[in-house]
Structures are given as structure tokens and as C-alpha cells.
């Protein structure tokens, strides 16, 4: 299953298991995340792909009874993201997240993007202006938002809100961006815009994306991992997974032979 690739690693899961209380949701996962590439996680509902994704920014810490085993190494500094000594807030600065449904704060467009920077203690107006613009441009929403920066973010359309959430995640210059089904609440046009954006973003940030839409995984990702019942069944180059998967279970899933 391990593929040999010379690309540098951004992160790597090593013997990662995860428990919701007694329930073991991830089983001994080993997987590389290559730097400045898009890696897609696919698999049926309940296979653990979102659980896995959320481990990367320690989202599970928010609930008692959750437990990790193993590690997620983050490079180039070789930090174990899951180590109790590592501050989850620091992790979330380096690892941004975009959710299934756009979830802007009930604030202005500008403040949504500036929020993470303010939390970090940045209050210089000029710096904030610059970074907000940079992030909005990076998320391909600057042209639509530049004349209405002080309007409530909720006035934007669904697709625009999602791009705003991406801008918000980009504002703190994360190294890894996590996308949890970022287009499942969007129409095909807005979906196309997000996919195009993902393609642009990988020039500067590594992306891990969970998607139920297999064609989307095939379109946007460089690597694909198929998960089933908490296990990593197959990991490989997207081109190979979709034409010649090695594992029968992957084949059955991507050809629509199982639910």
C-alpha cells in the first residue's frame, strides 16, 4: 500500500487510532500527506474519513472521552500534532479547516477574515487591511466582496460564504487546509468555483479534502485514500486509483458496487 514518492511530506499519520469513548473509529492508520498536493479521502458514510480529518487540527479535543493513539507528524519541524504538550490553538493556526456548510461568524465580511489575526494579537489596521485583502483574493472572492466589506457575511450567497470561510482559514497563513465536504451544500457552479480555487491554493498550501463526490475527488486531488470501517484500505495516486485500483474493496466502492 505504501507508495514511493519523492515529493516532500507535509504530514504523516503513524499508527493512528482514535476512540470515541469505547468505540474505535480509526484503526491503525498510516498515511503520508505530500506537501503542496491535494489528498482526497473517500469512503462510505461512517468510514472514519471525517474523524481522521478532524484529528489533524485536534478538533476531537473539544469533547471529553475522545482518545488518540499513535501520532501525526507535521513537517518540516517533525512535531507530533497529537502530543499533549502541543497547544491545540497553535495547531489550528497552522492547520485551517473549512466545513461542509458555510459557517461565517455573525460579523462583517471584513471581521470574519480579520478574526483569526486579531486572536493572534494583530491590531495594526494597515496590516489587517493587507492580510484581509490577500486572503480574500486567495479565496477568489475579493472582486465580489471588496465594495461590501462592512456588510454582514450572511448577506453573501452560499457559494460566496464558503469562499469567505476559505479566506478566513487562509488569513492566518496555514500550512495545511482541511476541507470537510466543502461543496456538498453548494450548487454545481459554486462547486466548480471551489474546485478551481482548490487547484489554485495548492500552489501555496497542502490540502486534505473529504468528499462524497467521487468525481470531485478524481478532479481535484493528486492522491486519494479509500477508507472503510475505520481502516485505510488503499492510498495511491488519484490517476491510478480511478483507473486501476489495487484492492477489490476500493474497486467496488468507486465503481458503485457497494453503498
Amino acid at each position: 500500500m505504501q507508495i514511493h514518492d519523492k515529493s516532500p511530506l507535509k504530514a504523516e499519520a503513524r499508527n493512528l487510532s482514535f476512540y470515541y469513548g469505547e468505540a474505535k473509529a480509526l484503526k491503525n492508520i498510516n498515511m503520508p500527506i505530500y506537501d503542496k498536493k491535494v489528498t482526497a479521502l473517500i469512503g462510505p458514510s461512517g468510514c472514519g474519513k471525517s474523524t481522521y480529518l478532524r484529528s489533524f487540527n485536534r478538533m476531537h479535543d473539544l469533547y471529553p472521552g475522545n482518545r488518540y493513539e499513535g501520532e501525526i507528524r507535521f513537517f518540516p519541524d517533525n512535531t507530533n500534532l497529537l502530543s499533549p504538550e502541543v497547544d491545540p490553538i497553535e495547531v489550528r493556526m497552522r492547520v485551517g479547516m473549512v466545513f461542509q456548510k458555510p459557517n461565517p461568524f455573525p460579523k462583517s465580511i471584513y471581521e470574519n477574515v480579520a478574526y483569526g489575526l486579531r486572536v493572534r494579537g494583530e491590531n495594526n489596521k494597515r496590516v489587517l487591511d493587507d492580510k484581509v485583502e490577500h486572503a480574500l483574493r486567495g479565496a477568489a472572492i475579493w472582486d465580489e466582496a471588496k465594495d461590501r466589506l462592512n456588510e454582514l457575511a450572511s448577506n453573501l450567497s452560499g457559494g460566496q460564504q464558503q469562499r469567505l470561510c476559505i479566506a478566513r482559514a487562509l488569513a492566518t497563513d496555514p500550512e495545511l487546509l482541511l476541507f470537510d465536504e466543502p461543496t456538498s451544500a453548494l450548487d454545481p457552479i459554486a462547486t466548480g468555483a471551489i474546485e478551481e480555487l482548490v487547484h489554485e491554493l495548492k500552489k501555496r498550501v497542502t490540502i486534505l479534502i473529504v468528499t462524497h463526490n467521487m468525481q470531485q475527488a478524481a478532479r481535484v486531488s493528486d492522491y486519494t485514500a479509500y477508507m472503510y470501517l475505520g481502516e485505510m484500505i488503499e492510498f495511491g495516486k488519484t490517476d491510478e486509483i480511478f483507473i486501476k485500483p489495487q484492492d477489490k474493496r476500493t474497486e467496488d466502492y468507486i465503481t458503485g458496487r457497494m453503498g
Partner: protein
Amino acid sequence: MNESQHLSSQFDDDLSRLRTHVLQMGGLVETQVSAAIEAYSTGEIASVKAIVETDRKVNELEKAIDDDCAHIIAKRQPTASDLRLVLGISKIVTDLERAGDEAKKIAKGVRRIYENGHLPGQYGVGIRHLAEAALTMIRQALDAFARLDTPQAADVIRADTDVDAEFKSIIRQLITHMMEDPRTITTSIEIISIARAIERIGDHAKNISEQVVYIVEGRDIRHTKEKAL
């Protein structure tokens, strides 16, 4: 190759209909080739018309199957073995159609020879044997496709070398005939065209077999040495 069922039974139906049509088309081409060989040996030139007629059906099937492939791709976005099956079929039908064209060429050549009052049998150069070998290749290639049987496909690919060698030997013999007796030139040239058509049928059978290997194993073995099989 994956034989288990899709969640969408309609998709299963689409794919199995596609395969059936390819085999139907293959059956027609097989008939064309064997009728053309028969005409060569017996001088039954009445069958030439039927062979030309069948070719029309073969052409129609080629278009219909390609159209079905396009629809399946547009509607189902097939992946993995399904994708390979659809792509492979789209190439297989091209080879089948061309094999049918070659059979038509053979038939027309045979008719010209007999109409000129010549008997190709007198040239005794082993066309019949060459043709049987090519026909077997076509049959086995279609069989390999029907059963998704890669060892059989590999047999067909290997057989092509023999057919090529036999073809060259026929050409040598005919050249000798022509040098010895220039009155044989017209018929010899017809026979060379026929031999060439038969040899091409073998090539098409080989191409079909290569697609079978691609469909089943995902390996593209075109333009590789036999050893790689």
C-alpha cells in the same frame, strides 16, 4: 475484472448489453471471414454479395456500440474496471470493423480471380492454411473477450507471429511464380492482396486481445515485446 453487481441495476444492464452487442458484431465478422475463405477454396462467388451485405450490418453495429459507449461515459462516469471495459470496447469495435473490411476485400478479390477464369487453388501457396490460422485468432480473441480470459488473449498475440511468418513465405512463393511465368502475374497480385488482408485480420485479432488484457488487468501491452506477456 469485476463481476459483482452495481447498486444501479440499470448500469449493469447497460454494460451487459454493450458486451452482448460486441459479441454479436464479432459473430458477424467471423462469418464474413469464414465465408470469404470458403469462397476462395470453392469458387462459390455467390456468397460475395452476402459478405458485402453483412459488412453493412457490421458498420452499423460499430456506430451503435460507440454511441452506447459515449452515453455510458456521459451518464455513469465509469471508473476502474468499468472504465477500462468501455474504453476497451470502443477500440475493439474499430478492429472488428476493419477485420470485416478485410473479409470484404478478400471476397471481392476472389470474385475477380474466378471471373477471369483462374483457379487460385492451382497456385498452391497455403492461403487456406493462413486463413484458417487468422480465423482461429479472431475466434479466440472474441472468446477471450467474452470470458475475460487473459491467458487465451496471450495465446492469440503469440499466434500472430506465426501468421506473419507464413504471410512472408507466401509472398516469396508468389514472387517465384511470377518470375517463372509472367502469365501468372495478374492472379498472383490478387492472391498477394488476399494474403495481405488475411494477415491484417490476424493483426486485428491481436489488437483485440491486447484490449482484453487492458480491460482485465489494466496493463497496456500494445507495442511491447511478446516476452512482456
